[in-house]
């Protein structure tokens, strides 16, 4: 019951999806719709675990008076008030939506915008002519960088064509090789899971 039954569930769930996808008469039973809803319910219930985790981790910080514990107080207060507001008024409620649109949304897009800074320092640090392989990568990167800005074309009219060539030929070919490999690796991983060879969540990684 501790390992065999979960393993059986794994195989049953996997086969349900596979058979529903490939076999016409099984597809007609619409098992996928039911299974999707089941998994969504399970996932929805798991949200509570996340809230418990936040409560425990930050609760302990507050108890210990750990450095910055006041942030944890803020976190838990906002978390519970906002969660209850959401359950009460749904996420469409006026105040709930106002806070999301005017506080969360700008925070979120600003963090996304931080990528611009990080990508700049990463390019500065990484693109060096250390080996000739690295040099090739650098050249491709710089051609595409200037080609994607209007300045590239202003410097040299055919820059846009050069950029397109890089995207269509070496980039597409290299990505194709990576992607085909990923599919094969993914199939092998899925098969290992179905055969019970990979089940770290039940202990004993691989083999037996």
């Amino acid at each position, binding site marked *: 019951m501790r390992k065999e039954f*979960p*393993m059986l*569930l794994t195989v*049953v*769930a*996997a086969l349900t*999806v*596979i058979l529903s996808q490939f076999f016409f008469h099984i597809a007609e039973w619409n098992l996928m719709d039911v*299974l999707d809803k*089941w*998994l969504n*319910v*399970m*996932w*929805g219930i*798991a949200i509570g675990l996340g809230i418990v985790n*936040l409560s425990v981790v930050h609760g302990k910080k507050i108890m210990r008076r750990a450095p*910055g514990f006041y*942030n944890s107080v803020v976190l838990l207060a*906002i978390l519970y008030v*906002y*969660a209850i507001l*959401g*359950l009460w008024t*749904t*996420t469409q409620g006026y105040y709930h939506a*106002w806070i999301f649109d005017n*506080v*969360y949304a*700008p925070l979120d*897009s*600003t*963090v996304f915008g*931080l*990528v*611009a800074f990080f*990508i700049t320092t990463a*390019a500065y640090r990484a693109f060096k002519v250390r080996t000739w*392989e*690295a040099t090739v990568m650098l*050249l*491709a*990167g*710089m051609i*595409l*960088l200037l080609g994607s800005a209007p300045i590239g074309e202003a410097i040299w009219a055919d820059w846009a064509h050069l950029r397109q*060539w890089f*995207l269509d*030929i070496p*980039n597409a*070919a290299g990505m*194709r*090789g*990576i992607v*085909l490999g990923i599919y094969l690796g993914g*199939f092998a*991983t*899925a098969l290992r*899971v*179905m055969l019970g060879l990979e089940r770290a969540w039940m202990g004993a990684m691989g083999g037996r």
Partner: protein
Amino acid sequence: MSFDFPSLLSADGAPVWAAALCTLAIWTFLIRDNPIYRLAEHVMVALAAGWGVGYYYYSYIHPVITEELIGQGRWFYIIPIILGLFLYTRFIPSVSWLARYPMSAYIGYGAGYYLAFNAKPFLSQVTASFVSFSQPAFTGTLNQIVFFICILASLVYFFFTISKERPAMGYASQLGKIVILIALGAHFGNTVLYRYNLFLGRLSYVLGEWMGLLQ
């Protein structure tokens, strides 16, 4: 050029102030980790997690309870609810192994899903690699030949258990590595400005909507 901030207390101005101050709070991290960023970060996690409670309850759990269980009387929808609750058994050590049930179901679904839904896209990637060399222009033909060789070389690079000591394999693998590095370099270079656009959007908001400097 002069500053023209919106009124903090007006219905139109308050959201602008809220959004602008949030933006500045995140930007302070670029100087160093500091109390303002820490506060913003904790507020973010709290709001996002709190939002998730309402959102996912009403998208995933509520409809199943009201429509399927009560509305349609489909009793078997109690099963995923029980399985979901099994996740909480980890707090009771004697029965904590029950949590494996929902996990196994979910992971099995994932394995099955990958096999079921990726075989077709995989084949279409294969057939897309069948290139025709007869092109209107000579450069077109040359491009297709280069493309074809690059694909094969990049495939060779990934071989895990086939020896690359034979010269042909060695060269092909080396070429494959270069093709992959060009692809990655090109991808990096091509993405930089998309990432800048997001930052520029925030900057434009702060300078324009908030400070009123842009007309």
